[in-house]
């Protein structure tokens, strides 16, 4: 009797621990939806483009969204602008130097002002953004949407959850050594970044 009770207790504890365990979401999206949009609005010229080479993993606990940790990686060579000459310059050694610095990364360190309503969480994330090999700490407002059991709607015959992350913030081009001598009337110093990504945690 005592053994049975202990076994039941152990099983219950295990199942509770399993359900409360943080989930690891993979952001290598097979549908190619994930993207990072960048905008530079200078007085003489506006530059708009996007990158879709997004990957990385994020550990998210639905019971404690504030404990979210993870790293998002953008393939620098996937940055695209519609003008081919501008794209060549952007990838070149004076600007992003994608041959040498192949990745743009953001590593989330901590969350503050965490507010959760249903499956949606808004917070302020603090993390390290690395562009062109230069790492800077940045803060950004972020929205996390936990879509429990929705993976099957995107990937047939696959059970699991989705985590959608949206973040918008601005960085200074000069802070990351991206051609700091370039005239700001043609290429703005402020880069507005918008990250819209979805990760999957299969079960």
């Amino acid at each position, binding site marked *: 009797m005592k053994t049975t009770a202990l076994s039941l207790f152990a099983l219950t504890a295990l199942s509770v621990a399993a359900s409360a365990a943080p989930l690891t979401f993979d952001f290598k999206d097979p549908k*190619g*939806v994930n993207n990072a949009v960048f905008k530079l609005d200078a007085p003489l010229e*506006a530059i708009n483009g996007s990158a*879709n080479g997004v990957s990385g993993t994020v550990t998210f606990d639905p019971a404690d969204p504030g404990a979210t940790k993870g790293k998002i990686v953008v393939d620098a060579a996937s940055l*695209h602008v519609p003008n081919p000459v501008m794209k060549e310059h952007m990838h070149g050694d004076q600007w992003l130097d994608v041959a040498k610095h192949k990745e743009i990364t953001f590593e989330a360190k901590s969350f503050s002002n965490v507010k959760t309503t249903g499956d949606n969480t808004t917070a302020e994330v603090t993390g390290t953004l690395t562009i062109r090999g230069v790492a800077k700490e940045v803060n950004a407002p972020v929205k996390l949407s936990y879509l429990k059991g929705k993976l099957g709607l995107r990937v047939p015959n696959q059970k699991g959850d*989705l985590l*959608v992350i949206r973040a918008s913030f601005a960085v200074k081009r000069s802070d990351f050594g991206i051609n700091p001598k370039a005239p700001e009337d043609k290429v703005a110093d402020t880069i507005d970044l918008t990250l819209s990504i979805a990760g999957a945690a299969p079960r």
Partner: protein
Amino acid sequence: MKKSLRLLALVVALAAAGTWFATGANRGWTKTSVEKKTLDEVTGLEAITYEKQFVPGLDFLGVALLGAGALAGFSFLFRNQPN
């Protein structure tokens, strides 16, 4: 020759301006791809893809008009043919 060069300059200028207007009078740089957004209904995210498409910009129009101007200018090097 003089008349032919001026006619060619006019054709180049009109063709360039016509192409620029017909493709949306893009006041930015020439594009070789255009953005296409599609909504992912499950996540609510917008996927961004690029389709190959030539959209001439002001640089294209400027170079074409300069070329037409050069052709017209070059025509002045030729003398009028006596009747």
